C-alpha cells in the first residue's frame, strides 16, 4: 500500500492516465508536490483539473502509470488515501436540509474531530451564530462555500484538494481563504487548488497548467505581488 517515494513528497504522479468512459481525462500526467507546498492548477475547461483532484482523493481509479499520494499507491488501494485528503469539489457537498453547523458537525463526527474543532472552524470562516443555525439550502452561495471550507478545516487533512475554492466568495472572503491556505501550508499541509483566474495564482509559489490532460507548464513562481 505504501510506496518508496521520498517522505517529503505528498503527490507523486508519473505518466498517470485516467480514462473516464474510454476517454483519457488525464493522458499521462507527471509532476510531484512536496509537503507544505501551495500549488495552483490552471487550465481551460475539460483539461483534466477536476479529474486530477479526484484522482488524488482516491475517488476515480488510476488507469495506468504511477500515482502515490500521501505515501499511498493509488493503483494498489485508492481508498486508503482518504483519511489523509480533504476534497472540496465544484459543488459544496452540503446537506441542504441541515444547518451550516450541523453539516460541519457531521463531517467532524466522521473523522473524530471535537466540538471545539467545529467551533473554531466556523469562527475561522466568519460563520456567526445566525448563519451557523441557518439551513444550508437557505444560505447564499458564498456562505455555503464558507461552510464547506469549515467542514474541510475540521478534517485536518495532510493534503487539501480544492476545486475553484474562490468561486462564489466576495473579496474579503477570498483574502481570508488565501490566509487560510497559507496557514495550512505553514502547518505542514499541502494544498493543490484549481482556478481559471490568472489573478488568483498571483502570489502562489507554483503554478501547474494542464492542457489536453497533460502538464503544459510547471512554473515555480508567478509574477506580481501577493494577494
Amino acid at each position, binding site marked *: 500500500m505504501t510506496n518508496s517515494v521520498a517522505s517529503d513528497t505528498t503527490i507523486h504522479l508519473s505518466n498517470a492516465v485516467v480514462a*473516464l*468512459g474510454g476517454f483519457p481525462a488525464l493522458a499521462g500526467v507527471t509532476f510531484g508536490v512536496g509537503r507544505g507546498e501551495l500549488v495552483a492548477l490552471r487550465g481551460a475547461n475539460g483539461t483534466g483539473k477536476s479529474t486530477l483532484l479526484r484522482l488524488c*482523493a*482516491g*475517488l*476515480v*481509479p488510476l488507469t495506468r502509470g504511477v500515482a502515490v499520494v500521501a505515501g499511498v499507491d493509488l493503483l494498489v488501494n485508492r*481508498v*486508503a488515501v*482518504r*483519511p489523509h*485528503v*480533504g*476534497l472540496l*469539489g*465544484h*459543488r*459544496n*457537498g*452540503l*446537506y*441542504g*436540509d*441541515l444547518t451550516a453547523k*450541523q453539516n460541519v458537525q*457531521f*463531517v467532524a*463526527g*466522521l*473523522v*473524530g474531530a471535537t466540538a471545539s474543532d467545529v467551533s473554531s472552524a466556523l469562527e475561522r470562516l466568519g460563520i456567526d451564530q445566525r448563519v451557523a443555525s441557518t*439551513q444550508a439550502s437557505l444560505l447564499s452561495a458564498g456562505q455555503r462555500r464558507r461552510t464547506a471550507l469549515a*467542514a474541510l478545516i475540521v*478534517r485536518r487533512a495532510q493534503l487539501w484538494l480544492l476545486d475553484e475554492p474562490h468561486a462564489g466568495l466576495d473579496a474579503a472572503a477570498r483574502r481570508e481563504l488565501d490566509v487560510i491556505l497559507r496557514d495550512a501550508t505553514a502547518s505542514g499541509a499541502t494544498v493543490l487548488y484549481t482556478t481559471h483566474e490568472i489573478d488568483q495564482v498571483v502570489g502562489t509559489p507554483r503554478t501547474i497548467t494542464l492542457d489536453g490532460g497533460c502538464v503544459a507548464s510547471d512554473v515555480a513562481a508567478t509574477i506580481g505581488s501577493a494577494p
Partner: protein
Amino acid sequence: MNVALSVARKDLQIEWRTRMVLARVVPFALLVMVLFAVALDSEPLVLRAAAGLVWLATLFSTMLVVQRAFDIETADAAIDTLLACAVHPARVFFGKALALFVQLFALVVVLVTAAMVLYGVTVSGSRVVLLVTVVISATSGLALVGTLYGAVVANMNGRDSLLPLLALPVLAPLLIGASRATEAAFGSQTIDMANGWAWVGLLGVYGIVFGAAGSAAFSPLTESDS
C-alpha cells in the same frame, strides 16, 4: 461503527427537519391500505388479506423513502464528501440502512395499527412476540435491500422509475415471507405459528445475505468512475 452511527444520525436529523416520511409517506401508505379495502369490498377477504396489504403498502412506501435517502446524497454531491471521509464504505452502507430501518419500522407500526383499526385484525398472547419479530426482521431486510438498490440507481438517469423496477422483483421473497409470517401472527386459519416462525427464519437469512452483499458492493456502486 462511529461512522455508521454518524451517517444514521444525519439521515434521521434530515427526516426530523423535513418530516418527509411523516408528511408524505405515511399518508400515502394509509391511503393504499384504505383503497385496497375499498377495492376488495369484502370483510372476510380483507381480514384474510390484511397481512399482505400491510407489507404491500410498506413495499411501495419503501421506494419513496429510499429515493429520498439517496436524493439527499446526490443533490450537492455530498456523497463525495461522505466517501472521502469514510475509509470503510461498508460503514456508510450500514449507517444509511440503519436510518432507513428506523423510518420503516415506525411506518410498519402505523400500518399494523391501521390494519387493526380498519380491518379489525387482532393480535394477542404469544402472537405479539411473533409479530414484533417479523416486523423487525422484515424491516431489516427492506432497509438493507433498499439501501443496496438505492446505491445502484443513485447515479443513473431516470432513477425514480428504475428503483422499483430493479428492487421490487428482488423484494418478492421478502414480501411473501413477511406476509405469511404476519398472517400467522394475525391468527389466520391458513397458517400456524410454527410455520410463521419458519418464515421468520427465512427473513433472517434474506437479511444476512443482502447485508453481506450490500456491504461488499456499496463502494463500487456509489463511486462513479467519472
